[in-house]
């Protein structure tokens, strides 16, 4: 499924790279430890986290993730937004907690490959 579909179904607020929502989402992952994400994600995954510092963009870019969903209405830091825009990486925000967002994505059929 495409990222746009997820944005629409979950009513996510898109903060960056809104032109890149046509990316194909291959799976999902929930983690707030960057080392864990680096070890365990695959390209195309959407990453659910509450981390807002700019290192999340470096990790997401490195692993070619399709986008980042921030939970609990977390606000990305200015440097994070800037880097994400430069990298064409969509950062989306939800008011829901990670548990519920993951559940909703699972209901849409998303899995970790």
């Amino acid at each position: 499924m495409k990222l746009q579909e997820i944005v629409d179904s979950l009513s996510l607020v898109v903060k960056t790279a809104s032109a890149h929502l046509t990316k194909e989402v291959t799976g999902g992952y929930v983690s707030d430890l960057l080392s864990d994400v680096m070890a365990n994600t695959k390209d195309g995954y959407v990453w659910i986290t509450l981390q807002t510092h700019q290192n999340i963009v470096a990790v997401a870019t490195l692993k070619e993730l399709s986008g980042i969903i921030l939970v609990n209405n977390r606000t990305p830091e200015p440097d994070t937004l800037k880097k994400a825009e430069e990298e064409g990486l969509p950062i989306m925000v939800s008011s829901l907690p990670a548990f519920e967002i993951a559940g909703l994505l699972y209901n849409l059929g998303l899995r970790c490959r």
Partner: protein
Amino acid sequence: MTPYRIVEKAASLGLNIIAICDHNSVENVEVTKRLAKEKGINAIPGIEVTSFEEVHIVGLFRDISSALRIQDIVYDNLQPGENDVDAFGYQVVVNENDEVLGFNNRLLIGATNLSVSKVVETIHSFGGLAIASHIDREGFGIIGQLGFIPPELNLDALEISRNITIDEAKKRFGEYSRFPWITSSDAHELSNIGKVSTGLFMEHSTFDELCLTLKGAEGRKVILY
């Protein structure tokens, strides 16, 4: 941020003591220390270890050999992966003439498999000082990552970053005033060196005096501005 330029900048600012605390590595410390000595600055060998919980802990050591031994342990326990220069930049080892001697291919931005208490214990086993980095920062600060400072963790000091004032820090972290506090620039660029610094009222600019000062021994004091 070459050894030469770091020392020149520190000297121009009148800093007496600096510490080189690269992420998970110590390979540029020896050259920096030698250059600093020529300028009358004590460059303390240091390292900033990323624990398994992604807490940053700074280790400061009396000598290079202790720091190198910690580096061995960190290298043995770094989670696997190679550095990606596009994502994280080049990890250079540089000599006193700003010449690149080689590249470190390890994923130094990554985490070790060492728990935060293991990191502190290991630093202490080499006679080092264990300092919780930038406790006010959410990302990679001990309070941000764990929610609190574990009561049995024998940290020697807490570092307040340059991003907040000491007064703000006292309001937010007053419950941790039992620890000595320091503040430092955490400079990742030359322009940030010396942005904040800690005053140390002590006899000499040495590592041993620093240890005594953090304990407040015999009239020595840490002065935060």
